[in-house]
């Protein structure tokens, strides 16, 4: 496997993530998109770690995983609360702060 292919895979993964975040109407899937983007970053980190002598890339990757876990936990919790409060999980319908025209 050539290193370029790995970078291309990471870019593809990131694009899929951002597309999910932008296009999907459901918050859950947007959260999934975010995870995908984080993982795309992880792939890049792992790849660049393998190019150098020091393990700082791997360290970052571990950090990112931890952050991703935290993020997923907090995000899901917010989502649950929002669902309880607004009886919906669609961000378009949560428009409390939106200016009415």
């Amino acid at each position, binding site marked *: 496997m050539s290193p370029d292919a790995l970078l291309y895979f990471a870019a593809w993964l990131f694009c899929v993530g951002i597309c999910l975040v*932008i296009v999907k109407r459901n918050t859950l899937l947007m959260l999934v998109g975010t995870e995908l983007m984080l993982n795309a970053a992880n792939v890049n980190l792992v790849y660049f770690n393998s190019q150098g002598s020091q393990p700082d890339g791997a360290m970052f990757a571990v950090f990112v995983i931890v952050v991703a876990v935290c993020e997923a936990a907090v995000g899901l919790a917010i989502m649950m609360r929002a669902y309880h409060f607004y009886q919906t999980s669609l961000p378009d319908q949560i428009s409390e702060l939106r200016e009415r025209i």
Partner: protein
Amino acid sequence: MAIRFALFSFMLPFAGALIVTMLPQNSRMAGRLATVFTGAAMLSSILLAFQSWMNPTHIHWPWFQTGITQWSAGILINTGSILMNVLVMFISFCVHLYSISYMKNERMQVSYYGRLGIFTGSMTGIVFSSSLIQLFLFWELVSFSSFLLIGYWSENPRAVRAATSAFFMNQIGDLLMLSGIVLIGIDKGTLDLSELGGQGTIAVSAGLLLLAGIMAKSAQIPFLTWLTNAMEGPTPVSALIHAATMVAAGIYFIIRIHLLMPAEVLLVASLIGCITGLVGGLGALISYDLKRILAFSTISQLGFMLIGATAGTSGAAMLHLYTHAIFKALLFLSAGVIIHQTHEQDIRKIGQVKSPFLTIPLLLGAASMIGLPLTAGFISKETIIESLHNGWPLWSAQAVTLLTTVYSARLIYFLLANSSWPTPAVKPDALMTVPIAILSAGCLWISVSWSPFDFSGALMKSLDEIHHFQPGMMTYVTLGLTISSAAAAFLWFRRQSTVPGFSGEEDNFGLDVLYRNLGYRPLMGLSMVAYWTDHRLINPVIHFIAYVQVAWALFTGWIDKFVVDGIITAITEIIIVSGDSLRLFTRGKIQSYILWAFLMLVIFIIWIIA
């Protein structure tokens, strides 16, 4: 002292009226109290007569002034005014006394005596007034109180109409007289009678204007209708004001100022006196209403007095004024007894009056009116006839005398000798008898002259110090004429009650209709024209102006809304549209924010790389 008595007899009736008005409306006391006051006034008038008979006094005070022009008021006492004052007070006292009985069943006692008091006081005011403006004041007050008294039975529409028309007729004369007085004041610079006396005669126009006032007050033609219509008032009132005093005020006034009147005016006045005397006599001759007969006879006698005052001597006219007041008041009061007890005014339906308490006064009054010897009327009437020298006034005075004789005979026939109708049971009660008896005594010669055939006996000597009147050729002619015509008339009316060929006294010989068509109707028409002008001419112009204003306002409002405001609106619209289009980016969708952020990031990176 004399002034004080004059003031007393002027103030006491007013004071009486004021005090009487304080009483409750149906008070029994009112009549007695008012009579006491009038009696006191009469007493002071008699005292005044004793005090200053033949001793003229004149006193005057400034009343009001503007700039250099001053109008005075005062008291002018001379023989004429003393006599008139005594007369007014005497008749007023008799009428008060009579009214206590006559009006005892009336509801509004207090107003009645209050009104009588105001009238009596005002009349005294006329008598003593020393300046024309002061005289005019009381002149109008007399009109006013006469209005009140005629309209006393205010629930009777006829009485009310009579009162109003009397007031209005008098007002016409009064206002003409007012302008006459104003003209005299401007012309002569004073209105004081004694000061005017030294300045020669007044202008003819002013004199004619004064004459108009005199004619209205004395019910001369063409004003006579108010007096006959005024017979709707209570009979004692008719006796007081429509026989003895108010209507005589005109004659009294012309006697007082006849020296100021230019000859032309006197001529016109005597002409009017002649016509009035004849018309009034005719009315009395053909009327069947007891009171209207007396009213017409008053008119006729007033015309006679006017002839005497203007073509003869004023003293003679004053004398006749005096005797006429007494015998006419007597006749009215006697007629009042009949009317009061029979409630009938048609002389054909009254029947033969038998009570001597009435027959003697009626006979005496009629005799005095006709002018039979031994009565006061004989002396005064013959004095006037004697004082007339030239042609037509003398002959018309004779004609008036003749008419007087005939209608008096007719009246006496119907009241005392008409056996075709059941005899009424009429008899005056004590309170009525007293004034009737006093007045009856006044009809005798003794009240005027010591000797029944000396015309310039007691009274006339003081009234006219220049002329001396004795029975002359004319006296015997008149006397013969009178007696024969009285007898002939009495016999005629025994056979036939009407005078053929004449009618129409009910509407005052058509004058009522004439005034309605010439006065009332055009006035109403004019007032309608004025009303129309206001509502159809002036107001529409105002409305049109207002509408134009409103239309203009609407137009400028439209300009404001669509032109000026339009520009402002267009500018704001542009701003709003552009703002809205920018807002498309910030619609509150998280994902679009992310998209834009991402795109920007991409663009940024591309820019950095490039």
